[in-house]
């Protein structure tokens, strides 16, 4: 009974609850028990069976996993960092509050790279997350716990955050759907800040319809986040079955032909393009001449913003304070050195350097101009195309430890996802098929990324829905639960 329940999408479970066929408490408890038995390291906190919700009609008590970057009143919120160990926020993030008001129940808080800085979930102070397709491999990051939980049948769906790819890349590596909405679609209030001009909340789900459901429940203006304007007209449930009349752009230097893309990923992408044509869309070559500089601009801008945002962790108002006999400055320095992990320190150093006197124009100023160019490339491309398609990640899931000694190699994992973040536009990753890892071994999921102009999520989800049906990805991770298919 319960093993079969865990195979449903959230939407399928919702339909059964609405028809009276499924008891919402039994459904929640089935997941609460699965989460208790987590062997992937996906959860940092779990509600356990018996948690009861608000009774909201929209989501009818469905369980949801929430990345540990969202403040939850009275419930531990660590952002994957030692510096926030034991922190219980006095308020709840708007996105989480809206889900609760819609009737969703908090199933657990998921593991993540510390302060969302990472592409493998190996930067968590609380241990790595393992990929349910192969536990010797990473789930991607930084929303690795959310992605592994959804793929591994430990949650029906989850939310995460995406600053440069942190929803889309782990979704791709775990074989699920991940949507980064337009910057400004969902409130950032109560979402622990990494890079404020880029951070955006979004869903990680088993299908495109579920992503639309979660986006619809969370989006909208918020008096607590003045950058959040919401999606005009709301979010329509996707229903499209073809891609007739749509023009899909593919950029030569920013697609399967780009340097460093694994052959298996490129082959899956080419098969996807055939399906896109088969559904009636016109596929053409577009130009995104500055997209290849996305990583360079991003690794100036995001660390610069992070170095300012993370100045608040000083041992005064919350979190860790290191024992120090000395003065205030030595307390600050010791607290931050004990509390932050290696990647966070590296980014704070990088950002502080880029903003420091004498280097500001050369790094930060130039990176902001490259950002303008990248946004302009997309704007030009969208004059001739409705959607832009790329692989989500240049590689399938890599082995734990494979990139930890080479920060730059890790950063390049986000090659295809960073430019959309810089431009602030929505992008979705859907399962595109399976590919063998370069060193051999069982096949692993590949993601296809589709991007569209700002605030056109309904159109993007509609197209993704049609393509999802054509791809018909029905593989299941072998390490998901004990029950088997």
């Amino acid at each position, binding site marked *: 009974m319960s093993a079969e329940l865990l195979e449903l999408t959230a939407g399928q479970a919702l339909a059964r609850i609405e028809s009276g066929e499924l008891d919402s408490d039994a459904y929640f408890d089935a997941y609460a028990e699965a989460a208790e038995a987590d062997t992937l390291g996906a959860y940092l906190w779990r509600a356990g069976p018996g948690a009861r919700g608000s009774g909201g009609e929209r989501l009818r008590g469905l369980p949801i996993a929430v990345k540990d970057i969202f403040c939850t009143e009275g419930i531990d919120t660590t952002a994957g960092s030692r510096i926030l160990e034991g922190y219980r926020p006095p308020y709840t993030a708007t996105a989480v509050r809206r889900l609760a008001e819609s009737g969703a129940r908090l199933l657990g808080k998921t593991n993540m790279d510390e302060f969302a800085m990472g592409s493998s979930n190996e930067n968590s102070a609380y241990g790595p997350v393992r990929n349910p397709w192969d536990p010797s491999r990473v789930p991607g990051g930084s929303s690795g716990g959310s992605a592994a939980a959804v793929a591994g049948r430990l949650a029906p769906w989850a939310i995460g955050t995406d600053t440069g790819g942190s929803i889309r890349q782990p979704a791709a590596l775990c074989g699920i759907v991940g949507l980064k909405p337009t910057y400004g679609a969902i409130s950032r209030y109560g979402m622990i800040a990494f890079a404020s001009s880029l951070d955006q909340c979004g869903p990680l789900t088993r299908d495109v319809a579920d992503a639309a459901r979660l986006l619809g429940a969370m989006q909208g203006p918020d008096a607590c986040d003045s950058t959040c304007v919401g999606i005009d007209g709301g979010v329509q449930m996707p229903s499209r079955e073809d891609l007739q009349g749509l023009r899909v752009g593919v950029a030569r230097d920013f697609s399967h032909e780009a340097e460093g893309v694994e052959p298996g990923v490129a082959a899956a992408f080419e098969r996807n393009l055939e399906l896109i044509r088969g559904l009636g869309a016109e596929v053409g070559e577009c130009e995104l001449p500055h997209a290849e500089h996305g990583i360079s601009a991003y690794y100036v801008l995001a660390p610069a913003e992070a170095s300012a945002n993370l100045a608040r962790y000083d041992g005064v108002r919350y979190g860790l304070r290191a024992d120090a006999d000395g003065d205030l400055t*030595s*307390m600050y320095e010791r607290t931050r050195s004990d509390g932050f992990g290696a990647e966070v320190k590296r980014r704070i150093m990088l950002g502080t*350097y880029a903003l420091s006197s004498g280097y500001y124009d050369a790094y930060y100023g130039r990176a902001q101009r490259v950002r*303008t160019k990248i946004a302009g490339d997309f704007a030009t491309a969208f004059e001739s195309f409705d959607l832009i398609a790329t692989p989500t990640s240049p590689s399938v899931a890599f082995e734990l430890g494979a990139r930890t000694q080479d920060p730059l190699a890790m950063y390049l994992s986000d090659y295809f996802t960073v430019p959309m973040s810089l431009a602030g536009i929505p992008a979705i990753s859907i399962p595109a098929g399976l590919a063998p890892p370069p060193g051999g071994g069982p096949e692993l999921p590949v993601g296809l990324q589709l991007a569209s102009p700002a605030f056109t999520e309904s159109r993007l989800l509609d197209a993704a829905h049609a393509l999802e049906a054509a791809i018909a990805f029905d593989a299941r991770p072998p390490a998901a639960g004990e029950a088997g298919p």
Partner: protein
Amino acid sequence: MIDREQVLHVARLARLELSEDEVERMAGELSSILEHVERISQLDLDGVEPTTHVVELENVLRPDEPRPSLPRERALEPAPDPADGAFRVPSPQA
């Protein structure tokens, strides 16, 4: 590209105390990252406006009406060393 002295200077600005090992490693890692980032120095960006924010917004206003804020006790609850309704810290000149 980044030497030991620069690492120590930036660490001071960022209020980070780095071990000898960390200083050593940081110099190498930051140099290789910046070498990659340097590629943008070859782009012609004359006359290009910097982007600070992607959503075009101006003066998001709300009515100036008083409303309750977080109670003081709740705000102090997560503090490592609250005292007398405030956050206690070591002296700046201990």
